[in-house]
């Protein structure tokens, strides 16, 4: 047994030194630690417990000094002793993780580090230790009870009357199973309950009775912690509490490049809830932070999130597009596109003027963004310029936007265009948007035109006629008047299978 104890102490000492030199993840440490754990757990299996008394420079097991080291920094015994630890016991069932943590705690270098506190906070299940407070002589005097001249029995009667209780009532404090269950779930709830919302509420409630700088500072400190750990839900809760204090600029500290750049991590988190909380928190930021937020927008991967972020920034901007305008000069198309979108959402009066330079911008993404922004800003007249854009996607986008806006001046132009042979050469998506536009702006005369296309191969030869016939039928269904529907109903019964099919399909897609 003596040999076994000596082996344990040797393993302990080597593991301690290796931890100090290499740290817990280094292979050199594990080289000593693993056999130490093995020999100690074997001992515990046999003897249930391995205990050590701690002296200033030595460790004692069963009245035998098993370890001595007088060099303070090196001495395990002294480290434990100085913080009041007087005995340590390892119990059977000890896990490797527990022992590892134990070695870690006792070998930390900082002079301010209190090993007893460190061990306490580990909450070990299989390591116990006994700590004494300093050996200073404390005052064990019992305070005097002041002598008063009073009839105690009479006083007791008065108290019973005052409290209005039955002093002889039978007390049976047994808990029934339901009460025990309730208590257990109460404890579980308490353990699971997040502390922050409760403390935020408490501090917020306090502020309702008194505007205390300490409380505000406390909330701001929590806010800082929340932002650091990207807990935007609680950050938002705090902001709601603080927003009623106009003199308190609680958000200013976050309106800097470092903090805002750190938000990149949250832009693509898998959980929508976290992103949405972030957006809500961002709502408290001021205009000055907009340029910085725009810088992180290109990192957003999902289009729905990008769109939501644009709207949030537009909301921050209010009616003022100044923070975005500088980005209209940007050479970076991503930044430029985002700036254009956000200006579109803000809808300043001079949107068309601001976007004029982009009609001929070399990047078609920029031109498309401009169309979208003009559409968002209700500027159809400015969109018209994009109907002749060299890129089909831009034209389609422009036609699509115009189809949704009131812009009748394009009607005769486009009605004429569908009669051109060149129209047949256009991409189908563009053809469809032209017809959609016509359907949205058309009059009685359009019904006649569409009927002619449907039945008479007017203006076109056989080539691509089937496509035109179907677009015409679709347009009639979108026009959706009695006259248009009558044409489609009749067409459905035609013997010509192509007409019948086109009309049938159009009636199915008819708006309800």
């Amino acid at each position, binding site marked *: 047994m003596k040999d076994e104890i000596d082996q344990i102490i040797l393993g302990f000492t080597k593991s301690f030194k290796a931890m100090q030199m290499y740290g817990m993840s280094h292979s050199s440490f594990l080289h000593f630690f693993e056999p130490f754990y093995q020999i100690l757990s074997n001992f515990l299996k046999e003897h249930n417990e391995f205990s050590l008394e701690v002296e200033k420079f030595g460790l004692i097991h069963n009245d035998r000094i098993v370890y001595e080291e007088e060099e303070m920094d090196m001495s395990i015994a002294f480290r434990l002793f100085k913080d009041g630890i007087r005995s340590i016991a390892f119990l059977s069932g000890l896990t490797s993780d527990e022992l590892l943590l134990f070695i870690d705690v006792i070998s930390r270098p900082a002079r301010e580090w209190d090993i007893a506190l460190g061990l306490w906070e580990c909450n070990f299940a299989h390591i116990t230790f006994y*700590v004494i*407070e300093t050996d200073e002589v404390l005052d064990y005097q019992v305070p005097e009870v002041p002598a008063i001249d009073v009839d105690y029995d009479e006083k007791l009667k008065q108290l019973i009357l005052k409290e209005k209780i039955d002093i002889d009532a039978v007390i049976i404090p047994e808990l029934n199973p339901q009460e025990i269950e309730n208590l257990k779930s109460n404890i579980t709830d308490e353990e699971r309950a997040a502390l922050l919302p409760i403390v935020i509420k408490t501090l917020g409630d*306090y502020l309702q009775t008194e505007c205390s700088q300490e409380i505000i500072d406390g909330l701001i400190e929590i806010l800082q912690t929340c932002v650091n750990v990207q807990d935007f839900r609680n950050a938002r809760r705090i902001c709601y509490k603080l927003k009623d204090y106009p003199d308190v600029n609680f958000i200013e500290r976050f309106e800097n490049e470092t903090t805002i750049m750190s938000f990149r991590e949250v832009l693509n988190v898998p959980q929508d809830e976290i992103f949405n909380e972030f957006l809500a928190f961002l709502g408290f930021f001021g205009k000055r932070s907009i340029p910085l937020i725009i810088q992180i927008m290109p990192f957003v991967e999902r289009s729905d999130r990008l769109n939501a972020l644009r709207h949030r920034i537009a909301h921050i901007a209010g009616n003022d597009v100044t923070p975005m305008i500088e980005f209209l000069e940007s050479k970076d198309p991503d930044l430029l596109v985002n700036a254009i979108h956000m200006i579109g959402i803000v809808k300043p009066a001079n949107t068309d003027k601001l976007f004029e330079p982009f009609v001929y911008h070399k990047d078609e993404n920029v031109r498309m963004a401009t169309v979208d922004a003009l559409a968002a800003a209700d500027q159809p007249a400015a969109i018209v310029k994009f109907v002749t854009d060299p890129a089909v996607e831009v034209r389609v986008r422009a036609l699509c936007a115009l189809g949704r806006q009131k812009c009748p001046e394009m009607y005769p132009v486009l009605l004429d265009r569908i009669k051109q042979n060149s129209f047949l050469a256009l991409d189908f998506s563009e053809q469809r948007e032209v017809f959609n536009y016509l359907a949205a702006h058309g009059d009685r005369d359009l019904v006649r035109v569409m009927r002619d296309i449907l039945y008479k191969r007017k203006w076109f030869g056989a080539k691509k006629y089937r496509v035109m016939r179907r677009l015409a039928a679709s347009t009639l269904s979108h026009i959706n008047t009695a006259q248009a529907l009558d044409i489609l109903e009749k067409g459905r019964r035609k013997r010509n299978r192509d007409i019948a099919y086109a009309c049938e399909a159009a009636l199915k897609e008819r708006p309800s």
Partner: protein
Amino acid sequence: MNIYLAGKTLVGLFYPLFKAVQVYDINNNVVVNAAQKFTDYAANLFSTMSSIEFVRYRDYIFFNKQRLRYEVDGYANLQFLNNLLKTQRIKSITLNRRLTQREVIDFACILKEDLALFHKEVSTRKFEHIAVEILKPDEEQDEFIEDRKALKQTYFKALKVTRNLMQNLWTGRQVDVKSSRRVIYGLVDSISHDEFGILALTTIKNFDEYTFNHSLNVSILSLALGQRIGLDRKNLARLGSAGLLHDIGKVEISKELINKIQKLSDTEWKTMKLHSNFGVREILKTRGLDETSMVAITVAYQHHWNYDGTGYPLREKADEPTLFSRIVRICDSYDAMTTARGYQPVPYLPHFALRVIWSNQNRLFDPILAKVFTQLLGIYPVGSCLELTTGEIGLVMRQNPSTIDLPMIKVIVDKNNNRIDGPIVDLASDTEMKIRRPTYPQIYGINAAAYFL
């Protein structure tokens, strides 16, 4: 494997076995199944430990040197075992590897016999894998000759730290947070080792320095209640800290007002009630915002919130006090009632204060916690002074976990009203002594706290 849980489980498995052998024949399935479960679990434990030992010491049960705490969950099982060992005067039972089912059943059978027969059976029968140690006559009294040095050191160190903390706050000096953290862990350890011992020290009250002793007593009472309901060490440390700091807001209120003997005016009362708010501020200032201080902040703010939604500071209807605040609410009230102060020179008797809490469950106090608190302190809490049917006066030294209305007392005044250093008597054992009524120790010129130092 967690030793503590293993011990609790094994005690829980022994209880149905013992009940079964009282009712059924030893070959009955109920007995056999109960014994099977017990031995199976023990065999599982023997894979990591060489022996299993239950020791009874001062009404505490130790399982392989770990104290099994009285908790709401499993309370009856532990109380039963304690009673059984006490009745049969057993100091310890050791189970060894290769324990058989038959041995377990036979042992349970002889445990149900009366004391003499049990002792005879133990000495004559040979249990190969069960060893029983019987309490020697001289060891009985030793149970009460306790070495309270460590507990006293912990208590008075905690008191010193509490006093320094508050005085430093009063004078705007730096606060030693590390010391208070150490103090709390020391108290958690004390509660876990000997809750009745440290609870006895809460009888120490201080008329002149009410707030310091009161804060510490509330912390200890809260820890004991928290342990009884089964909080883990981490949460106990938070709760203890919250108890210690619950009244810290009073440092912002003038000492004149705090110590005022006369009835407070409406304005003064309004100011006094602000201590819940001020507490939040003080904790923020001194402790910052770690998890422990967040709990303390909440408790400081809510410790005058009543169970029925009343109390102060004003709150919305939906706001409920946290479990910790409800615990501190009870302990704060109990200690405040039982302490003499300027405006309350005659304190409530401990048993009376307990009845006030009992009667106000559902209104002021959480009813379940009020019950557990009563279980914890007993009908006659430690420090109570009792008039006995023999004409003597006894002081409650310790609660009897199994019989909460029959504590252990020390006879301190004889029939002729002379102060004596009388014996310690367990009122739960067969004795002529019965409780006539609780009384004020002041009548006999006694300072109850002195008996616990």
